[in-house]
């Protein structure tokens, strides 16, 4: 016969309030999701466009009136613009991020803590508008003058470089954490087998921190997809697929940022922009899902 313990009496109000605060966050997140889904589905439900049209057609000519329909809402140019700039940004930043992370952990941990950490904090601290402003005042004229770009330097390349700088701290910080968590015994074992430092890094440390670095990459990508104003300032906002890296195009966030306020609420154009916002939400939730997937797989591999 067991007597279950009686719980200590606690203050009633305090715990209730903190619980409500927790529930409020859930409610807030759910309502953000819900509102975006409702608004974003309008293109397909209210105006009966197909999802295929939205994703794959490049015919973007929505009517801008509260009720009239009949336009086209193919967002492929914007989607391609986002994919292209983010992909290119990732290619540009990866060697720098991973190189910096290795430098901060394996080559000079002291410089890593004392110099690089604060430097990265400055990278993080610079607001995105300021990155856009730098892109506009430095990068765009540079590309115009050096590569003789036709559209005055506003280009996929400019947008990608700006994005690369902006996601550099995210990928680097997460990679540093991942590399730091590789047990030292691995390194000692490898050095004991007469490896050079680079061999230790390349053959032991990087593979062991692979999933952490992947997490950083996805976090960085997710940030790049969502970045609006900095990209909008340098991408040129031209509704055409780019012919090359030096030509301008447009992307999801820039379109939303510049057009949302100029469209009739609830109209075809307006709702198409909301569909783009919904797409951004889906991308960012997918990224979180991927990160959890990677984490779960890494855990499983550790046990196996």
């Amino acid at each position: 016969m067991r007597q279950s313990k009686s719980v200590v009496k606690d203050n009633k109000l305090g715990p209730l309030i903190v619980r409500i605060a927790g529930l409020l966050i859930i409610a807030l997140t759910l309502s953000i999701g819900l509102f975006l889904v409702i608004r974003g589905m309008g293109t397909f439900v209210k105006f009966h466009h197909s999802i295929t049209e939205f994703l794959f057609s490049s015919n973007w000519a929505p009517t801008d009136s509260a009720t009239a329909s009949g336009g086209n809402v193919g967002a492929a140019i914007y989607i391609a613009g986002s994919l292209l700039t983010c992909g290119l940004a990732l290619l540009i930043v990866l060697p720098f991020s991973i190189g910096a992370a290795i430098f901060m952990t394996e080559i000079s941990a002291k410089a890593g803590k004392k110099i690089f950490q604060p430097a990265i904090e400055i990278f993080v601290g610079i607001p995105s508008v300021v990155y856009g402003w730098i892109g506009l005042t430095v990068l765009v004229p540079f590309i115009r003058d050096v590569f003789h770009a036709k559209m005055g330097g506003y280009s996929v390349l400019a947008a990608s470089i700006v994005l690369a700088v902006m996601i550099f701290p995210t990928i680097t910080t997460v990679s540093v954490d991942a590399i730091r968590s590789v047990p030292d015994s691995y390194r000692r074992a490898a050095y004991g087998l007469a490896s050079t430092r680079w061999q230790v890094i390349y053959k032991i440390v990087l593979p062991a921190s692979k999933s952490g670095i992947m997490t950083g990459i996805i976090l960085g990508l997710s940030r790049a997809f969502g970045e609006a104003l900095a990209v909008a300032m340098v991408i040129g906002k031209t509704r055409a697929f780019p012919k090359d890296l030096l030509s301008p195009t447009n992307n999801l966030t820039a379109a939303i940022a510049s057009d949302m306020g100029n469209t009739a609420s609830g109209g075809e154009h307006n709702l198409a922009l909301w569909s783009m916002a919904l797409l951004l939400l889906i991308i960012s939730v997918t990224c979180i899902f991927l990160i959890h997937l990677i984490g779960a797989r890494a855990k499983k591999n550790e046990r196996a």
Partner: protein
Amino acid sequence: MSDTILDINKDNKEENVKLEVNNLNLFYGQFQALHNISMNIKANKITALIGPSGCGKSTFLKTLNRMNDLEENVSINGELKLDNTDIYKEMDALELRKRVGMVFQQPNPFPKTIYDNVAYGPRINGIKKKAQLDEIVERSLRQAAIWDELKDRLHKSALGLSGGQQQRLCIARTLAVEPEVVLMDEPTSALDPISTSKIEELANELKKKYTIVIVTHNMQQALRVADDTAFFLLGELIEFRDTKKLFSYPMDKRTEDYITGRFG
């Protein structure tokens, strides 16, 4: 009843029983950590609980002020009475902890000033007047024999004190709530010999006013400070008697093996 050797209960009927434990069992989930413990802890005495690590002595100590309530998955049955009132059925845990204070193995001052550490208990129990708090802080620190060392730095952080001073501060903090019983869970295991002997002297002084239960795995310490000693093994109370008798004429083979150092 169990087969514990408890001549103490018969020997000293005339003495005041402060804590009465009858057939106490404690479970962590399915695992039974304490088996049928019965013992009477006498007022104004020091009772030592000894035994090898994992024998249940600390677990038992925690049941005396219901600190085990904080852990998940613990269930107990049996009877535990403080001055004839059942502490699990008839008493609120907070009420109980006011009357039964606890000093922990590691000194654990709050990251506050020395003064605020000692005044913490009285304050949460509603004492707000500065004069009254001043008086309690001074009295408690004096009782813990550390007033002279600390009186000039009452408003400095408690974390700057040495380990031994911290532990005596924690004792003062416990005394400030004016408990009747003070539980000490290996209070000197983290301290140097000089601090240890100070705490032991202090315990001897404190028993005039308080009932003290001390867990120790230092048998010499039990012999030095305790009036009564209880020997625990594998969650059972094996023998509980006057300290001198227990150490000179252990009645159970297992007690003898332990105190002569054959295991533990």
